[in-house]
């Protein structure tokens, strides 16, 4: 079973710029290094460019500069080609296939995989992490609650056996209890599957608890980077940039 698991890969980003057409550049040259198997949090206020960073990495928007996953360049590729290189992006708003059943959502997550046995094993593992999805496997995904849809989105990303998991605001619209549970599972996934995780969050407290390193993004530039503990200790700086205490 362990042979079918993908292990995490190291992400190396240098001078990444991205935007939405002329005159609306959002990212102004980001450098980011994430070690294999690490959880990295990107914090920052609304409009800082957090979502754009993930979109540039997964090919949804065009990024310039370099972004390499274990030496494989991610930039200049369509999203489907980036996914085929082991990057699973859970977008803002979750991107659930609402008309498909829960199980079909998970199965389509493994679309690029050829190893049937591995897919079956992955399905069992996802149901292990999220038992509520197993209970609702025949329901259409659109009938799930927000929290369940977020679990489904993460579960679907896991089906790809990703080397890099990109999570965009997993806490969005969820109750604090469900958010806490979700982050606990993300941590468990990271530990058991050795998946490298980049999580973008507004909930700085929870993100710092989960991640080992964090970066604060402000108007398209990293203004603060370091170990989670260090950033938490540096509460005043963070408060100045994030607009709230940690």
């Amino acid at each position, binding site marked *: 079973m362990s042979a079918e698991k993908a292990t995490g890969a190291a992400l190396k980003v240098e001078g990444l710029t991205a935007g939405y057409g002329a005159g609306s550049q959002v990212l102004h040259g980001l450098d980011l290094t994430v070690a294999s198997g690490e959880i990295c949090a990107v914090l920052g206020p609304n409009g800082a460019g957090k979502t754009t960073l993930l979109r540039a990495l997964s090919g949804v928007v065009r990024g310039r500069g370099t972004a390499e996953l274990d030496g494989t360049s991610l930039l200049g590729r369509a*999203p*489907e080609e980036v*996914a085929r290189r082991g990057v*699973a992006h859970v*977008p803002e708003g979750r*991107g659930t*296939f609402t*008309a498909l059943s829960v199980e079909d959502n998970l199965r389509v997550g493994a679309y690029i995989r050829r190893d049937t046995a591995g897919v079956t094993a992955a399905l069992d593992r996802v149901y292990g992490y999220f038992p509520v999805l197993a209970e609702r496997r025949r329901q259409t995904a659109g009938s799930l609650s927000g929290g369940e849809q977020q679990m489904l989105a993460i579960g*679907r990303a896991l089906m*790809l056996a990703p080397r890099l998991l990109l999570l965009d605001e997993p806490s969005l619209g969820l109750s604090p209890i469900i958010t806490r549970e979700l982050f606990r599972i993300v941590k468990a996934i990271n530990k058991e599957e050795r998946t490298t995780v980049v999580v973008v969050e507004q909930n700085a407290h929870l993100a710092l608890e989960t991640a080992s390193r964090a970066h604060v993004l402000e108007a398209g530039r990293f203004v603060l980077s370091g170990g989670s503990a260090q950033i938490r200790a540096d509460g005043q700086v963070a408060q100045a940039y994030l607009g709230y205490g940690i």
Partner: protein
Amino acid sequence: MSGFFQQVVLGLGSGAIYASLALALVLIYRFTDIVNFAQGELAMFSTYIAWQLTAAGVPFWLALPITLAVSFLGGVLIERLVIRPFEGGPELTVVIVTVGLFVFVNALAGLIWSFLVKSVPSPFPDGALDVGGVNISLQTLGTLGVVAAVMGLLFLLFQKTKIGLAMRAVANDPASARLVGIRVGRVLALGWGLSATVGAISGILVAPVLFLDPNLMGGVLVYAFAAATLGGFDSPVGAVVGGLIVGVAETLSGAYVDAIGSDLKIGVPLAIIVVVLLVRPRGLFGHAVVERV
């Protein structure tokens, strides 16, 4: 009473033909939210290919698979060359492109094969079954059987295969489909190819009944629109049920409502479209569009 059932059987026969073209319409609509106005003309063009092959001496049962394969490739090419440049733009733009395609394909067929009508032999044997005084022609039975088989195959494709799962995912949310590694462009091209193939079957079923000329599918397309509207534009089952209902409604109103007769029969699909849009816009089997914000 057997006269009534006779009309119902006749209606089912033509309804099956409407259903087959409606299936082709629904296939493209599910993937792209586009109503393909050229669907009927593509079917007509495919029918000419089949006719040309048989006229050149190729046996029908060999000409059929060749025609279907050529139609599939033609659908793929049209998606790649004509539709792809407008992908992601407003849906109206693409719909207008299909209207242009309608005119182009119609003129092209006229240019190649002229506008003189050609008679096409039926793939089904002559003769009829007598069931309690109701005459069921083998033509009708064969048409119904083919449409049922096409629907069954499409169901298996969508529900039981991996590529079918990918097709449903693309139909539901193309952006998310890309994020799981599905090459959406190829799936859309496959959808157009399948749709052109189903349309070709439709044309080959119609031609022996109506005679072949470049305007073969004009009327049928109107009935197919009514069928797809009634059944629900995103539902293959709905397309078939809608087609059968439209066929029966057309025949019965022609036979029993004097004011309609055979001249005003074409008004029946129009009336069905209007009523469905007023009463139940998503059709019998369609899904209401619900967006969670």
